């Protein structure tokens, strides 16, 4: 019955590799998000996606790209991974901004 689910929960890989994190929500929400939480617990928006409209945080490198096959999924692809990409990535969804966002449990990405 998980509302927002992310896979994998842990991802350990080497610099230079390409990886993907999947996110699915079964809440029927229209908007999905990706956040990055750094080692100091600071959460920062990366993308929001609503009705095929993508809003990108300008500080996100173009190595990161979200892909939405349908309204219930927003996957995150990362190319040429760098050490600084190590963080916990959270997916979230909401009906709209006036409604609370529901978060997944996060994916801990570690770059060796």
């Amino acid at each position, binding site marked *: 019955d998980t509302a*927002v689910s992310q896979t994998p929960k842990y991802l350990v890989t080497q610099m230079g590799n390409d990886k993907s994190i999947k996110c699915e929500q079964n809440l029927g929400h229209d*908007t999905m*998000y990706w956040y990055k939480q750094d080692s*100091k*617990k*600071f*959460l*920062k*928006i990366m993308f*929001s996606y*609503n009705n095929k*409209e993508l*809003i990108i945080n300008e500080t996100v490198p173009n190595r990161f790209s979200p892909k939405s096959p349908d309204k219930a999924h927003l996957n995150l692809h990362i190319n040429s991974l760098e050490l600084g990409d190590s963080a916990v990535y*959270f997916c*979230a969804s909401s009906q*709209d*901004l*006036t409604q*609370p*966002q*529901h*978060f*997944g*449990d*996060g994916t801990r990405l570690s770059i060796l």
Partner: protein
Amino acid sequence: AQSVTQPDIHITVSEGASLELRCNYSYGATPYLFWYVQSPGQGLQLLLKYFSGDTLVQGIKGFEAEFKRSQSSFNLRKPSVHWSDAAEYFCAVGSLTYGGSQGNLIFGKGTKLSVKP
């Protein structure tokens, strides 16, 4: 630009004592305000939200928060803390874009709450 400040990085309280976590925001219009809690290794869980109306909002787990426009604050309170409340607490403001059709949350840097027996 919108921003959220949580002045306290780490707070320790005794079990049974009262708690207040501070949050100040900077936002041009009436904000949408949220408090989330994150337990270790977990995602974020919504405690409460403020959109409009009564400035004192009640949330889950016995938490409440008061919106004070004059002080740009949205402080979180609990009258009696339980050991299970130990976690990281995040204040967030909803940031609208594209005329309010879409947006995202801007988070404070969090306050870690420790509870001593």
